[in-house]
């Protein structure tokens, strides 16, 4: 399969027209990448003898051996999908086959054999010692809010580290196919703003650690995972700028390969890959509009954007081929052919690390987000700030202002702590 060296394997597969990469664990329904950002399980494949590799994060290399997992047959045609047909109303795994001991045991033996996704790895991975780092302010997330917070903290005199899980900073600005209005009221294309924010952080002396994904916050340490080792960071203040991602939408067939997030579709476009020739967009907002414009500019046909309530079903086997839409006021639904469905549900903030750090997370009615002061990102934990989309905020200018205030406050609070000998760290 052809690929551009270094691009994610899932992107290369999409470029070859392949969205059907895997099968689900229970019903063996076809599965494909949804987020292209390491926040789902749709892109998992076996690469070079290692199971469960997230192909949206695995850079393609010449000679790489990529296989589908957990199928009898192929991802496109898995014999085990008979389970899906056999249990049309769903499989009640709690109660099935509990009437009779022999049947129960037989059922369990089958269930165990079918269970599991990856085979054991065929090669040994050597132990790799952890590394350590220290700083005054640790910023988690190298998107616009993280970059702004880190820059401000560094300018205010704090020794600042920024952890970014991908190979570049800029976050969503890198994929947004349109213009944004920055803090100086200039309308620029999004990647240009990302580049400027990155330059500012670099010249302010922020230690930017790319390909370092924060994976856990513990009492006095943050654990990050780099490609082949982990890094423990001790910081006096933490600024969480982990952003948000598209979650799932509830309509029949929303789990079909070819149904992906609008941001994921934009990420594909950025890699020069058209997500589909005829793309249906479900859910409205800035991303939906920007995606629609960008798709049309590249010669793709765009259906919608439709409101989420208008779409009742996505159809196709093994990948999406049509959607059923009941437009507002229409008497009946129409079936529209498409080869990709880009969904824009309310965004789901990445609240996990902030919560582990001690910040309160609340439910907005739509999603969970970190509870943070809108002006400076202060949270319920004294040493933790949260800025940007992980707090449920939106709007570039507002978020940048909040992020800068957080960076400033985080740095200044360290000086104050020295003077008054206040205990560091928040209480649980």
């Amino acid at each position, binding site marked *: 399969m052809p690929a551009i060296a270094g691009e994610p394997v899932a992107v290369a597969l999409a470029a070859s027209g392949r969205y059907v990469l895997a099968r689900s*664990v229970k019903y063996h329904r076809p599965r494909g990448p949804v987020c292209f950002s390491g926040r789902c399980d749709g892109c998992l494949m076996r690469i070079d003898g*290692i*199971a*469960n590799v997230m192909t949206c994060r695995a850079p393609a290399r010449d000679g790489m051996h990529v296989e589908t997992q*957990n199928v009898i047959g192929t991802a496109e045609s898995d014999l085990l999908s008979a389970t899906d047909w056999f249990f049309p109303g769903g499989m009640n*795994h*709690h*109660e*099935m*086959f*509990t*009437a*009779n*001991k022999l049947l*129960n045991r037989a059922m*369990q033996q089958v*269930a*165990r*054999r079918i*269970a*599991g*996704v*990856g*085979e*054991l*790895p065929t*090669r*040994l*991975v*050597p*132990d790799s010692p*952890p590394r350590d780092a220290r700083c005054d302010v640790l910023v988690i997330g190298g998107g616009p809010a993280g970059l702004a917070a880190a820059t401000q903290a560094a300018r205010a005199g704090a020794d600042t580290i920024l952890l970014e899980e991908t190979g570049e900073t800029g976050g969503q600005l890198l994929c947004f196919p349109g213009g944004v209005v920055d803090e100086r009221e200039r309308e620029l294309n999004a990647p240009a703003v990302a580049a400027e924010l990155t330059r500012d952080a670099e010249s302010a002396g922020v230690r930017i650690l790319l390909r370092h994904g924060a994976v*856990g*916050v*513990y*009492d*006095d*340490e943050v*654990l990050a995972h780099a490609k082949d080792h982990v890094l*423990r960071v001790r910081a006096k203040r933490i600024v969480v700028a982990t952003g948000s991602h598209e979650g799932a939408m509830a309509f029949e067939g929303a789990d079909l390969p070819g149904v992906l997030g609008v941001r994921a579709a934009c990420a594909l476009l950025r890699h020069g890959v058209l997500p589909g020739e005829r793309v249906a967009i479900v859910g409205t907002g800035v991303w939906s509009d920007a995606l629609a414009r960008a798709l049309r500019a590249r010669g793709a046909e765009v259906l919608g954007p439709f409101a989420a309530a208008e779409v009742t079903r996505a159809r196709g086997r093994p990948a999406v081929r049509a959607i059923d839409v009941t437009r507002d006021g229409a008497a009946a639904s129409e079936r529209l052919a498409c080869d990709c469905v880009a969904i824009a549900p309310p965004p789901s903030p990445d609240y996990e690390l902030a*919560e*582990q*750090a*001690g*910040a*309160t*997370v609340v439910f907005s009615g739509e999603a969970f987000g970190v509870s943070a002061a809108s002006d400076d990102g202060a949270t*319920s*934990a004294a040493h933790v700030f949260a800025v940007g989309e992980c707090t449920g905020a939106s709007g570039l200018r507002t978020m940048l202002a909040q992020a800068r205030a957080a960076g400033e406050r985080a740095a200044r609070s360290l000086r104050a702590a020295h003077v008054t000998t206040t205990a560091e760290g*928040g209480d*649980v």
Partner: protein
Amino acid sequence: MTARRSQPALALTTVAALPDAADVVVVGGGIMGLATAYHLARLDPARRIVVLDKTYLCGGASGRNGGGVRAQWSSETNIRLMKESVRLCAEFATEMRINVWFRQGGYLFVARTESRARELAASVELQRAHGLRTRMIGPSDAKKLVPELDTRTLVAASFNPDDGVVFPWPFVWGYARACEQHGVALHTFTEVTALETDGGGKRIAAVVTNRGTIRTPLVVNATGAWSPEIARLVDIALPNHPHRHEICSTEPLKPFLRPLVADLASGLYFSQSMRGEIVGGISNENVPDGLDQRSSIDFLGLYASALVEAMPVLGAVRVLRQWAGCYDITPDGSPIVGFIDELDGFYQLCGFMGHGFMMAPIMGKLAAEHLVSGKGDPVFEKWNFRRFRTGELVHETMILG
């Protein structure tokens, strides 16, 4: 070095009103309390039984353990009781009509020194005298059982093919449903804030909760790690205390590991769940006091080191999630059960260390029989609270995790 988390909010989800009187109130809606309530309701349908839990079902150790169920123990009482409990686990799915995924792949205890091997062998002899099929095996047989195991430093191992692993949560749901079907009033998100006594403080009179008071002559303390707190409400100083134990699961793999592998020297244990994940833990003395259920970096390091040393191919396998629960630790490793001399109507069912889950099916049954008939299995005297006063401690050494 532990993950911080904000305090969980108590949401009142229980719909029914709390009764104002009951014949027995079981405090603790984990598997121990629910099994007891279930058997009580079956033996004595006229009895008004209430079960209280301060959070959601499966919130305590019943929802956090690794699902191990074994009869390999060093003390006679444990061997005898667990032999029966294993049998009850095997019957549970068809008896209670809910799948619990009980898989009897056996437990393999490994010994890496001669002295450990001798200790194991002594337990094995005792187990065999009780009719268990446990046997001592050498490194090459252990290797046949678990080809991926590094057996180079293995001296010997014990293996009982009838030990196994379950998925814990459906036990709780199964008992809960059966309780309700038998008329037990189950109230979650209901916290006991005080216990009232009368007769000059000589017997239990009522349970006070955040949702109301229940008059009752009998309280069963089945709160596990929280049991000393409950006992303190009536000024009883139980000698047990909570001790955090962490646990971890990996990404799901196709089935390859038949037994649960355990090493008493380090407390390491691991097994493959029905979903294909490797689930396990290890001993760690460096833990905070009290009811701390947060996760730590140190546990990850300890566990990963030991696990990869025992099974090198797992180095490439990824940890998906780590969590924790609290063991309910007693000075001699044996539980605290039965009535207490100091206060009438206050029945203990706690101190089960890290194996309360697997003991609950038999203990709930025996406790119910004791409460209904007044005549109990000898264990309610042998493991009684009074032993800490008389010095007749009962030691159990084959503790894991």
